[in-house]
C-alpha cells in the first residue's frame, strides 16, 4: 500500500534526524523521567490526606499516571509535532507543496513529522503501570491488556481528532500560532480519572472532549473494572471523529485555495 510506504519514508527521515541530533534523545528521556516523577509526587502528596478519592486508591491513580505517560508519549511521537507544524505550513506557504503532492493532504500533514525520542518515555511509563498495578493487586491478563490498548487507541485517535479540529482553524486564524495551547488545556484533564470531576464536566470529558477514553477507561480495563460496552462507543466516536475532521479539513483547504495569495 502506497500510504504505508510513504509513512515508512517519513519514519526513516525522522530516524535520520534523530541520528543528527542524538542529544535530543537523552534530553527527552530525562525530562520525561522528571515529568513522571513529578506526577507521582503530586499523587503521593494528594493521598497523604486520604486513601481514596472518588473511589480511586493511590495505587490505581498511579497506574493512571503511567497510562497518561504512555498516551502522552504516543501523542508526542506522532501527533504533536504535526499539529504544531500545520499553522506554520499555512503561514509560510509550505502548504502549497502539501497540496501539490498526489497524496491526501490530510494524511501528509498528519504523519509527516515524528518525534522518535518520545519512544524512550514508554519504558518508564510501562514500568510505572506494572509497579503500581502490582500494588493495586491487578491480575494481568492478555484480554485486559488488549482491551486497555483498544481503549487507548480510541482515546489517542479522539485526541488527535480534537487537536486536528482546533488546528484546522488556523486556515482562518493565521496569526493564531498558540492555537495548540487549547488542546493542552484539555489534555491536562487526562491526568486524572474522570470521576474526580463532577456533573456536566464529567459528561463533557467523557463524550464531548473525550479524554476519558485515553486514560480513565484503559486503567479501568487493566483493573478489570471497565464497562466493555463503552469500547463500542469509543470506536464509533473515533470513526465519527475521523470523518468529521476530514470534512472540516476539505472545507478548510477549499478556503485556502480561494483566499490565500
Amino acid at each position, binding site marked *: 500500500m502506497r500510504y504505508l510506504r510513504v509513512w515508512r519514508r517519513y519514519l526513516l527521515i525522522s530516524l535520520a534526524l534523530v541520528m543528527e541530533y542524538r*542529544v535530543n534523545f537523552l534530553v527527552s528521556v530525562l525530562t520525561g523521567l*522528571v515529568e513522571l516523577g513529578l506526577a507521582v*509526587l503530586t499523587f503521593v*502528596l*494528594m493521598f497523604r490526606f486520604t486513601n481514596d*478519592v472518588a473511589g480511586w486508591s493511590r495505587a490505581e491513580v498511579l497506574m493512571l499516571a503511567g497510562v497518561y505517560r504512555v498516551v502522552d508519549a504516543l501523542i508526542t511521537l506522532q501527533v504533536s509535532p504535526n499539529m504544531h507544524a500545520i499553522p506554520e505550513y499555512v503561514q509560510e506557504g509550505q502548504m502549497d507543496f502539501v497540496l501539490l503532492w498526489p497524496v491526501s493532504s490530510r494524511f501528509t500533514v498528519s504523519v509527516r513529522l515524528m518525534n522518535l525520542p518520545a519512544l524512550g518515555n514508554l519504558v518508564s511509563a510501562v514500568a510505572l503501570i506494572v509497579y503500581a498495578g502490582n500494588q493495586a493487586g491487578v491480575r494481568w491478563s492478555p484480554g485486559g491488556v488488549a482491551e486497555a490498548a483498544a481503549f487507548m487507541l480510541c482515546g489517542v485517535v479522539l485526541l488527535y481528532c480534537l487537536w486536528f479540529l482546533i488546528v484546522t482553524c488556523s486556515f482562518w486564524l493565521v496569526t*493564531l500560532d498558540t492555537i495548540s495551547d*487549547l488542546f493542552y*488545556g484539555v489534555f491536562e484533564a487526562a491526568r486524572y480519572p474522570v470521576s474526580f470531576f463532577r456533573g456536566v464536566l464529567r459528561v463533557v470529558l467523557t463524550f464531548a472532549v473525550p479524554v476519558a477514553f485515553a486514560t480513565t477507561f484503559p486503567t479501568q480495563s487493566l483493573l478489570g473494572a471497565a464497562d466493555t460496552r463503552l469500547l463500542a462507543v469509543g470506536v464509533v466516536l473515533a470513526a465519527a471523529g475521523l470523518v468529521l475532521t476530514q470534512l472540516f479539513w476539505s472545507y478548510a483547504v477549499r478556503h485556502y485555495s480561494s483566499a490565500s495569495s
Partner: protein
Amino acid sequence: MRALRIVRRLVLLNVMATLEYRGSFFIYMLNAVIVPLITLMVWLAVSEQGVRLPYSREQLVTYYLTLSVVSIVCSTWLAEYVAEAIRLGKLSSWLLRPAPYILHDIGNNIGEKVVKLPMLLPLVGLAGLLFRGEVHLPSDPARWLLFLACLPVTAAIAFLLDFVLGSLAFWVQDVSGLIRAKSLVGAFLAGEFVPLALFPHEVSGFLDLQPFRYTLSFPIEILTGQLTPARTAQGFAVESAYIVGLWACYRLMWRYGLRSYSAVGA
C-alpha cells in the same frame, strides 16, 4: 532616566506587536484559567472525601483563582529566546546599540503582559462566578498592599531567573533540556499543582528557602492569609536576597559572557 525611557518605548512597541496576535494571546489566557481550574476541581474532589486539609474549600478556590492571575503577572518565556540570541549570534545587532540587551526583554515582558491582563481578568471573573460565594478575598487593605508590593518583585525574580538560565548559553551548547526541566520542577515547587501549604511539614524549611516559591506562590500565600507576620517578614527577606543575588549573577554572567562571545566573533 534613559533606561526607563527606552523601556517605555520598547513596551509600547511590544504592546503593538502583541495586539497583532491578540487571538493567540487570548487562547493562552484561556489556558491560564482552565489549567488551574482543573487542578482546583481535583483538590475539591479530595476535600470532599471528608478529610481535613490544611486548606478549606474557600481557600482552595481563592488560591487557584488568584494563581491564574499571579501566574500571568509573574510569567516568563524568554530563556529560550535569550539562549537562541546568544547561540545564533543575534546579539550582535543589539551590542551595537548603547543599551543593554536585557532592556529588550524587559520591554517584551511588560508589553505582552499589558495586553494579556485585560484579557485574563474577565475570564477569571467568569470563573469566579462559577464559585460564587466561595471566593474569599481579604478586606484588610494592609494585606492587599503587601500583596501588590510583593507582585512586581516576584515577577522580577521569575524574569531574572529565566534570563540567567538562558544566559548559560554563553557557555553551554544546548540549554533547551535545562530550560524544560526548570519549567517542570519550577512549576511544581512554585505551588502550581500542589499548594506549598499541602506539602509535609518536614520540608517546609526547604520550601521557604527555594527560589521557586518567590516566582509565584509567595504573593498568593500573602493574599489568601496563610502566613503569620513573622513568616511574611521572613519571606520578604528571602525574596530581597534572591533579587540581589540574581541581579549580581546576571551582571557577572554578561560581563564574562560577552567577552567570550565577542572573542568568538559569533
